[in-house]
């Protein structure tokens, strides 16, 4: 891995870099990310791979009717393979799900929840945002006719809320736009001052220095003589301007030390989490449903839990049990592709090679919790001017609260909406999953009330639904992560397959873990591996 701190975009002179100074943060971040990632840039593929064979009549059994399993079945059948998906659950989509009226979530050992949101309301308790650079996901939405809409990932009007840090902001929600622009303003001030005092003379030419100072002054954040950061129009008004002689009043910046006390991590806007993202209209599960519609009904066998897989040099035999009536059946094929999460796959008896058996233990599961909380008034829009976006907190087990980007202004189905009430990931989400459903709701309400005092509890409809992905029997995690050691040692073993058995899905895309694009492109990469194999060996 290259040292990203000092790396300079290749082929880019300091001059051309400075000419694009308006984009300093973004460009630099993207380029260094590009150079730093060994595994190639995110989501390079924008369509399924060309395959060299017509499948030669080979039959492929696919475990799991999630996005990856359905992409495999759809694309490979198009080429001429016979495909059959075996799915343990009674629906297609896997983790690509949304909860709306009537949806059921049942965690291991917990009470069954039935969603009772008003018509039109939903929460994406699986994947919930698509960046523009995930061309593979967008490809299927476009070709399958799944409508997408803007998902507002970042709004300046939403809040940072910290209560575990001393200082003036402790326990006070502050607008992200204020904290962000103040950070930028003070950085601009300091940079302009040191440049002006000659401290950068060893680093850049006189000409470039002048250009830099010109850009910094033009930002409008600092005064042109002393270079001090002060109230400005980017930060906005404390009293809004209006008609006539009402010019409003510009808001005063926070003190620099106070601004610096806000964790940098909360400004988490990256190339794959930009301000403007996308979501499927009416719920992200519509992407899975689009794929399902593209398949023949018979291509998915539901309620079928695999118990045994036996392979030899000629093929593979799968034994599965119907979870409803207990009937056991077997099916044979030339190849098997598992898209089951590896934690789930451990439970199946399979005659894998020693190397492969070790490789499929290499990932760790990431626990993740979400809750959808329903309201009968969009107070965040009407009172706080928040339209979509995310409020970040430092409360363990909470992390964020996200306002709905659908039904903005209540114009689609009335003055109602579902807030994603918390979304902890990794170890911090485990204590949340220990709570009962009622306690989880109370936790979400108690945090929400701190950010929106007087409103959050008042407009709560009484309906909520939550998930702990590590407690869902056929997921056992939100997604899986590869350690660097695992990527180096185990991933290549897994990727090439073990005789007749291949492993695909999100796991096959270590650089896109947890993304729908990871599932889709993982499926595409497995298709290519099998196609080569069939071309060579039949």
């Amino acid at each position, binding site marked *: *891995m290259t040292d990203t701190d000092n790396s300079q975009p290749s082929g880019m002179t300091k001059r051309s870099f400075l000419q694009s100074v308006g984009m300093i943060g973004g460009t630099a971040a993207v380029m260094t990310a590009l150079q*730093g*990632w060994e595994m190639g840039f995110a989501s390079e593929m924008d369509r399924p791979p060309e395959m060299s064979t017509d499948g030669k009549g080979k039959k492929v059994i696919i475990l799991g009717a999630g996005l990856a399993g359905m992409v495999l079945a759809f694309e490979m059948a198009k080429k001429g393979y016979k495909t059959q998906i075996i799915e343990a659950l009674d629906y297609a989509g896997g983790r690509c799900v949304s909860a709306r009226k009537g949806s059921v979530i049942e965690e*291991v*050992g917990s009470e069954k929840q039935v969603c009772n949101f008003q018509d039109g309301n939903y929460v994406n308790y699986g994947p919930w945002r698509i960046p523009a650079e995930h061309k593979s996901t967008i490809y299927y939405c476009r070709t399958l006719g799944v409508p997408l809409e803007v998902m507002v990932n970042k709004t300046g009007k939403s809040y940072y809320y910290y209560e575990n840090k001393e200082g003036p902001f402790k326990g006070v929600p502050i607008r992200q736009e204020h904290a962000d622009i103040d950070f930028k303003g003070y950085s601009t001030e300091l940079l302009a001052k040191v440049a002006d005092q000659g401290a950068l003379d060893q680093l850049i030419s006189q000409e470039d220095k002048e250009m830099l100072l010109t850009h910094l002054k033009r930002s409008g954040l600092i005064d042109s003589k002393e270079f001090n950061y002060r109230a400005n129009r980017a930060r906005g008004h404390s009293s809004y301007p209006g008609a006539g002689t009402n010019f409003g009043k510009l808001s005063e910046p926070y003190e620099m030390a106070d601004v610096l006390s806000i964790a940098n991590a909360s400004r988490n806007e990256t190339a*794959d989490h930009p301000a403007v993202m996308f979501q499927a209209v009416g719920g992200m599960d519509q992407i899975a449903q689009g794929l399902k519609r593209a398949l023949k009904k018979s291509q998915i066998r539901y309620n079928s839990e695999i118990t045994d897989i036996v392979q030899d040099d000629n093929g593979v035999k799968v034994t599965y049990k119907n979870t409803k009536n207990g009937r056991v059946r077997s099916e044979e094929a030339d190849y098997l592709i598992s898209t089951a*999460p*590896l*934690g*789930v796959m*451990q*439970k199946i008896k399979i005659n894998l090679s020693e190397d492969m058996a070790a490789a*499929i*233990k*290499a*990932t*760790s*599961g*990431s*626990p*993740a919790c979400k809750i959808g909380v329903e309201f009968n008034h969009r107070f965040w829009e009407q009172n706080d001017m928040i339209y979509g976006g995310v409020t970040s907190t430092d409360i363990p087990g909470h992390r964020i609260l996200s306002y709905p980007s659908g039904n903005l202004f209540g114009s689609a189905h009335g003055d109602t909406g579902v807030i994603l009430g918390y*979304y902890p*990931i*990794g*170890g*911090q989400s*485990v*204590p949340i*999953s*220990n709570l009962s459903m009622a306690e989880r709701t109370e936790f979400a309400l108690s945090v929400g009330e701190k950010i929106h005092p007087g409103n959050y509890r008042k407009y709560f409809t009484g309906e909520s639904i939550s998930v*702990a992905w*590590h*407690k869902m*029997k056929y997921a*056992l*995690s*939100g*997604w*899986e*992560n*590869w*350690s*660097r*050691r*695992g990527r180096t040692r185990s991933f290549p073993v897994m990727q090439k397959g073990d005789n007749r058995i291949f492993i695909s899905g999100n796991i096959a895309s*270590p*650089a*896109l*873990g*947890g*993304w729908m*694009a*990871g599932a889709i492109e993982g499926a595409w990469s497995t298709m290519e591996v099998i196609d080569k194999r069939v071309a060579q060996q039949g």
Partner: protein
Amino acid sequence: MKNYFKLLLALLGASTLMTAANAQDHSAEGAQIYTDYCEACHQIGGEGYEDIYPALKDNEFVNGDKEELIYLLLEGRAGMPTFISDLEVDQLTTIINYIRNSWGNTAGEITQEEMDAAYDEIAEEDDGFGPGN
């Protein structure tokens, strides 16, 4: 490789240092960490849950090779999460010893030095490949 060596050295060193005097009783703190971070899956008393979450009680792996178990706790494995960024390294030592010495388990103590060596190695490897979420 170099780090593996460090770990091996630490393991060897530890076995000579291990005396009853420096084996600490972590049970109260261990029990709390267990409740917060482990019980959701492995259940009260380390009993496990059907064939979904393995029992930790009388578990050969838990009572077996120290190094394997340390890596499992730090890196996760086969669906099991990593807690490397959620628990402090001394808490990780506490919980590993709690699990190895509760509910009838009587495996030997893992020292802080052993945990530190593995922790440093793995933390070094972290290249910030965050999940999409």
